[in-house]
C-alpha cells in the first residue's frame, strides 16, 4: 500500500478503496460502531438522536414545500392553501413541517432538561453545552421566521411584535427595526428575507449540530450517575446497544408525531393564522407559538419595554454561563438532595411561565409570571451558586458497572447512594 493511504481494515474491496483514501467507514465505525458509551443510559438519552432525526425531517419537508410556496404577500397564503388542496400529499408535507416544529421543541426541551438534571453542562462538557444553546437560539430564529411564511394574521402580527422588540434598544432601535423590515412596516421585503433566512438557517443549525456532536465525541457522553466511566466494564459499544435503544425511542417518537399530524394537525397552531394577514386589524388576543410562551411571559412580566426585552434574552443567555454558575462538583441530581427539589421547582416555574404566556396580560397572570420569572433567575443566579457550597451530596457509587452488576435493573437513587459492597 502506498504511503499516505489510510490503513483500512474494511473487508469489502470497494469500501476499502474508498476508506483508504477517505476513511469515512473507519470513522463511522469508530464514532458510531465501537464508540464506548456508558452502559447505564436511560431513555432520556434518546433525545439527542431524536433531535437529529427531527432536523432532517424539517429540512426534507421544507425543501419540498418550498418547491410550491410563493414568498409574496399577495400569493403566500394562497400558495400554502394550494399546497394543502392541490399538491399531491401537500397537506402531509405541510402538517409534518408545521407540527415538526413543535415536535422539535418538545424533543429539544426534554434534551435540555436531561442536561440540567444530570449536570451534562459541567466540566468537561461546557463547550458542548454552549454549542447546544447556540443551536437552541438558531432554532428559535428559524421557527419564528417559518411561522411568518404562511402570511396569516398570526404570522403578520407575530412578525410585527417580535421585530418591534428591537425598537427597545436605545438610539439605534428604530433604525434597526426599519432595517429588519426593509420598509416602514412588515411587508413584502420582510417576507422575502424571512423566507431566504428560513431556508438558510437550518443548514447553519446542521453545521453547529455537527460541532455539537464532534465535541460530544471528544468528552464522551454523560450518564445518569454523572460519574466518569472508569474502564471497559463501564461502557458498551454504541452499536448495537444504543442503535437498538435509540430505535425504540425513535419509533415511539414517530408514533406520537403521527398521532399529532394525522389526528390533531391544528391543535398546536392558532385558528387566526388561517385568516389572511391584514395590516389594518390586529387580532384581539395574539400569542406566539407555544414553544415561545415561557419567554414571552418573561417579556411581559417586566413593565419596562427595554427591561422586558433584556430579561427575555437574558433568560436564554444565562444558559451560556450555567456551567460556571453551578459550583457543585457533583453532576447528577440523583446525588444532590437539596438541589433536586429546587430544580423541579424551576421546572414548575418554566411551565407556569408557559401557561401564563398564553393568557392575556392581566391579573393574576402578571403577578404569577413575575414570581415565576424571579424564581427562574433566582435558581441560576443565587440558588445554584450557593448550593454548591451548602449542600452535602450523597456518596457517589464507585463505578457505573457496580450498581448495575449488583442487582440488575434500575435501583432507586437512595439505594445507590449507600456505600457499595463488592458484588
Amino acid at each position, binding site marked *: 500500500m502506498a504511503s499516505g493511504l489510510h490503513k483500512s481494515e474494511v473487508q469489502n474491496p470497494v469500501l476499502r478503496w474508498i476508506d483508504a483514501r477517505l476513511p469515512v467507514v473507519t470513522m463511522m465505525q469508530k464514532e458510531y460502531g465501537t464508540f464506548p458509551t456508558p452502559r447505564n443510559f436511560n431513555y432520556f438519552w434518546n433525545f439527542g438522536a431524536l433531535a437529529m432525526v427531527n432536523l432532517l425531517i424539517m429540512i426534507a419537508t421544507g425543501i419540498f414545500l418550498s418547491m410550491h410556496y410563493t414568498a409574496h404577500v399577495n400569493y403566500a397564503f394562497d400558495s400554502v392553501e394550494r399546497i394543502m*388542496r392541490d399538491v399531491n400529499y401537500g397537506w402531509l408535507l405541510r402538517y409534518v413541517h408545521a407540527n415538526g416544529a413543535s415536535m422539535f421543541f418538545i424533543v429539544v426541551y426534554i434534551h435540555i432538561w436531561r442536561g440540567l438534571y444530570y449536570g451534562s453542562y459541567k466540566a468537561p462538557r461546557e463547550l458542548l453545552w454552549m454549542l447546544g444553546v447556540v443551536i437552541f437560539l438558531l432554532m428559535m430564529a428559524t421557527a419564528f421566521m417559518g411561522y411568518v411564511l404562511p402570511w396569516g394574521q398570526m404570522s403578520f402580527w407575530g412578525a410585527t411584535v417580535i421585530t418591534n422588540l428591537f425598537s427597545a434598544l436605545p438610539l439605534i432601535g428604530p433604525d434597526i427595526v426599519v432595517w429588519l423590515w426593509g420598509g416602514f412596516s412588515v411587508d413584502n421585503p420582510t417576507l422575502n428575507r424571512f423566507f431566504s433566512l428560513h431556508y438558510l438557517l437550518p443548514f447553519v443549525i446542521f453545521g453547529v449540530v455537527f460541532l455539537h456532536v464532534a465535541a460530544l465525541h471528544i468528552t464522551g457522553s454523560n450518564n445518569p450517575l454523572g460519574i466518569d466511566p472508569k474502564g471497559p466494564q463501564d461502557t458498551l459499544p454504541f452499536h448495537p446497544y444504543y442503535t437498538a435503544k435509540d430505535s425504540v425511542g425513535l*419509533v415511539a417518537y414517530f*408514533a406520537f408525531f403521527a398521532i399529532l399530524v394525522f389526528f390533531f394537525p391544528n391543535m398546536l397552531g392558532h385558528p*387566526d393564522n388561517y385568516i389572511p394577514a391584514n395590516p389594518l386589524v390586529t387580532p384581539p388576543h395574539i400569542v406566539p407559538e407555544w414553544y415561545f410562551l415561557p419567554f414571552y411571559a418573561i417579556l411581559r412580566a417586566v413593565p419596562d419595554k427595554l427591561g422586558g426585552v433584556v430579561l427575555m434574552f437574558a433568560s436564554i443567555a444565562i444558559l451560556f454561563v450555567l456551567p460556571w454558575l453551578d459550583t457543585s462538583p457533583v453532576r447528577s441530581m440523583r446525588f444532590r438532595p437539596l438541589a433536586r427539589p429546587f430544580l423541579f421547582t424551576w421546572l*414548575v416555574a418554566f411551565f*407556569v411561565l408557559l401557561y401564563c404566556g398564553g*393568557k*392575556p396580560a392581566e391579573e393574576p397572570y402578571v403577578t404569577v409570571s413575575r414570581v415565576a420569572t424571579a424564581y427562574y433567575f433566582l435558581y441560576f443566579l443565587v440558588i445554584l451558586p450557593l448550593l454548591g457550597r451548602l449542600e452535602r451530596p450523597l456518596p457517589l457509587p464507585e463505578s457505573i458497572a457496580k450498581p448495575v452488576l449488583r442487582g440488575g435493573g434500575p435501583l432507586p437513587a437512595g439505594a445507590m447512594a449507600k456505600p457499595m459492597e463488592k458484588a
Partner: protein
Amino acid sequence: MMPALRILKAVAVAAGLLAGAGLAAPDARAAGEAIHLPDTRFSFEGIFGHFDRASAQRGFQVYKEVCSNCHSMRLLSYRNLRDLGLSDAEVRAIAASYQVQDGPNDEGQMFERPARPSDRFRSPFANEKAARAANNGALPPDLSVIVKAREGGADYIHALLMGYEDPPAGMTLMPGMNYNKYFAGHQIAMAAPLSSEGQVEYADGTKATVDQMVTDVATFLAWAAEPELEQRKALGVKMVIFFTVLGGLAYAVKRKIWADVH
C-alpha cells in the same frame, strides 16, 4: 442532613406547590367571558371520521342559495365538488351557471364566459371595498377555510348560526347589528341567515329545518376547509398500526441485544 438545609428543601417544595397552585387557580376564571359552545355531533369527528356526502351536498346548496350572496369561497374550484360525490356532468352544469371574467381576447377586451370546472368559485363582490360598501361597512369573511380559522371549528359555525336571539333586557344594539349568543361581543353585522324552515328546498326531500340547514352547511364548510380530512385520518390509522408493530419489534430486538448486559 443539616437542619438549615432541610428547611431550605421544605421551602423549595412549598414554592413548587405554590407555583402549581398558581397554575391551577386562575384557570377557573378564564380571560374575559368565555363563551361555551354546545358540542354538535358531526360525521367527520373522531379517528374514523368521514364527511356525510348527502349532508355536505345539501350544505353546498345552502351555501349556493343563501351564503354565497355575500360570502366568497375563493380557494375552492367547481371541480372540487366532484369530491362531494357530484358527477362530472353535474359539476359542469353548476360551473356553467356562473359567468366568470376571462380575457383579454384578441381585441384586448375582458369578457364574461360560463365558468368551467377548473375555475374558482365566483365571488359575490369584485373586491373588499365593494363587499364593504354593500354590507354597511362590514366585510363578510371568505368561507374557504372558515372552519379552520375559528376557535371551535364546525361547532362554532353551528352554534353561531343557531345563536340568534333577542338581546337581553337593558342591552342596546348598535344600528344594523344583531344579537348573537355565540359571537364575540354578541353584536354581529350579519342578520340571521337561516331563520325559517323550508328556506331551502332540498332536492333529496330532506326536511329543511333550521337545524338541518345549519348542520348541513357546517358540514359543507368543514369539508371545504379540510378536504384532505378523510385521506388524512385513514392514513393516520395505518401509520399508528404500523408504528405499533414496528415499535414492538424494535423493543424485542433491543431486549434481545441487551439480554447479556442486564
